[in-house]
């Protein structure tokens, strides 16, 4: 079974200083100094693929794990990491620095669909529900529509069944669904516990990390020229400030008393 894990590399937005949350003339925020990491939902998705593969013994299924990202040259180290974790094939769709594709899930979905339909057929696509930057929550859904595949969202676990099926656990509104589904399908990963990706050894990095990465160079001009159905027109910082009265006191107990007597007691009584 061929599984494509799609992921995005994002800056750690927690490291962006408060004063840096401003959009420039191109409606972009400078996050270039923040450390890069896997988008958390995608990291969960990739680890889920590896766990599925760990479980394959005894099921007589061979999982071929592949990975694709749309991103910059700098993001290739992440693809190398996946090679070292025994991913079969890694692809980078080249995206240059000055193109803001954070809010263009249509284009990303089209690129992935094009890769699957035109270059490398896959049985399953696994990816995170959303990214921390765009927060579009659209890419996996649009991809499913583009491919004409069913899509399960908020996936939290995968288990093997056979060459043509997977057991998928997912969250729905107020319930958990466990389904055995046939391929092909798109699986969008939501809040999965323990979603840290494992770490390859340096030896595996040396041995496997040098495998060539496939590059796809899309015609960005053409892609971006095509009118988007949804366009970002404004981007504004959200400022959250309250009184922030700092409670003084020598010991935690004194502070707690002041907090309780002056601020909480009355409010709690009203409730």
């Amino acid at each position: 079974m061929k599984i494509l894990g799609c992921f995005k590399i994002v800056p750690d937005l927690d490291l962006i200083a408060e004063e840096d949350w401003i959009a420039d003339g191109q409606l972009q925020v400078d996050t270039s100094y923040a450390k890069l990491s896997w988008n958390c939902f995608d990291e969960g998705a990739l680890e889920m693929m590896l766990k599925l593969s760990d479980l394959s013994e005894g099921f007589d299924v061979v999982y071929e794990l592949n990975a694709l990202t749309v991103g910059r040259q700098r993001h290739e180290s992440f693809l190398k990491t996946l090679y070292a974790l025994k991913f079969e094939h890694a692809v980078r769709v080249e995206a240059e620095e000055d193109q803001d594709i954070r809010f263009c899930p249509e284009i990303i979905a089209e690129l992935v669909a094009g890769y699957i339909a035109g270059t490398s057929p896959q049985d399953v696509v696994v990816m995170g529900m959303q990214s921390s930057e765009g927060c579009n929550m659209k890419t996996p859904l649009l991809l499913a529509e583009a491919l004409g595949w069913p899509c399960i969202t908020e996936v939290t676990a995968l288990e093997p069944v056979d060459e043509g099926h997977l057991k998928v656990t997912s969250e729905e509104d107020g319930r958990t669904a466990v389904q055995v589904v046939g391929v092909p399908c798109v699986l969008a990963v939501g809040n999965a516990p323990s979603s840290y990706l494992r770490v390859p050894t340096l030896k595996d990095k040396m041995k496997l990390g040098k495998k060539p990465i496939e590059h796809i160079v899309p015609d960005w001009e053409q892609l971006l020229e095509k009118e988007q159905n949804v366009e970002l027109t404004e981007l504004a910082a959200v400022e959250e400030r309250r009184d922030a009265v700092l409670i003084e006191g020598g010991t935690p107990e004194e502070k707690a008393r002041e907090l309780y007597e002056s601020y909480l007691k009355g409010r709690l009584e009203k409730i």
Partner: protein
Amino acid sequence: MAIISREQIVEGLVDILGSEQVVTDEQVLKESSLDRYRKYEQVCEVYTQPIPAAVVYVKSAEEVSEVLTFANDNEINVVPRTGQSAIEGGLETALKDSVVIDGSTMNKVIKVDEYNMQVTCQCGVPLQELDDMLRERGYTTGHSPQSKPLAQMGGLVATRSIGQFSTLYGGIEDMIVGMEAVFPNGKICRIKNVPRRAAGPDIRHIICGNEGALCYITEVTLKLFKWQPDNNRYIGYMLDDEYMKLGFDCLREVMVEGYKPSFARLYDAADAQQHFSAWLPEGKAILIWMAEGPANITPAIEAGIKEMMSKHPELEEVDPKLIEKWYGGLNWGPEQIAEEKEEIKATQNIGITTEVSGSWDNIYDIYKTACDRILEEVPDMTLMGGHSSHSYINGTNMYFVYYYNIVDCAPEEEINKYHDRINQIICEQVIKYGGSIVHHHGLGKARAKYVTQEYGSSYYMLKTLKQAFDPNGIMNMGTLIPLRK
């Protein structure tokens, strides 16, 4: 080891301190039996060290004195602690029925003396709180170790710690003025606060760096400096990882020319990727300086360093804004520790550090040969690298940073299979080339076994100090001087 029973120890302590200050909760005792040297055991909640009889919270030097006298009379091993950020085994309770003396409730800032530029505080004052408070008044201690959100004054002085701005302000040994400490026989000693004196040896250094093996620190006075961050200048250069030798030479040049940046660092490529992956290409090492101080000095330091560096075609300048932004998010506190714990549990991948120092003529060899040997001899390594972060006129330090996967290994075995083995390789290489195996985390118990090699003939002096001040052997046994097995 104690000549009275565990129960009698607890009873005796309750008699002195009252039951509120004596904790015997099992979980607290277990967690007090080790420090972050045994990080994996901590994560797995497996405890291999003897569990202490009690953790006591002390409120004054007099209480410390009474507890120590009781311990001394009954030969009970005590482990002094404050902020609990130790990472070299200094807080391990190596002997049965030990007592942990926690000074974190002695947390009063006694006096901020702005005229004489010094601040006096009790041993449990958290450095972060102290420095934040001082900065609001326009001052700083100049001490800013990465453990700042956790560490407290007693532990900082006891371990001879050093901060990120050491190149300008020095280590804690350069910042201390007077101190108060309690010795095992209950004697409370106070060293007065004076700018300098030549009345015999500097006895402050019996206290500073004693790692709880000679006395218990109860009060510390530190120097104050003006806090003027608006004048800070940042300077950065990237270079290919293969030019690490040149990187060390660049650090040296700046020191030798007489500049005093507050911050001087060299990261190798592996370590640099952990911090600067957003913009630093893979395979690039990085050199960083920060100039701090009066407004007419920092631009001069900046210009001086830039001029020297411009002569090295191997260096490529980095936008100083990127360095400044990185510097804004450097410290490491309880949240990071909690997060790391879960990450280790999920991935079985663990990261550790070991810091050493060397002269300019051997630091590169220490760095290179230790890295090479570890990669060759230790299995399952996922990252091996390091940085130099404290430079002197005659040499610098090396902070090794390494990660490995724990594969097919019980929590009890991890230390032997991985951590000690790596530590040993580093120490062997340092001793071979003539550096020091400890730059600023303390010998603890982890590296005490190398103490005779580290000290050579001067080990006589250390041993004599121990015998003189702690004849009954109750002060943090196994630290500094290894236990006889």
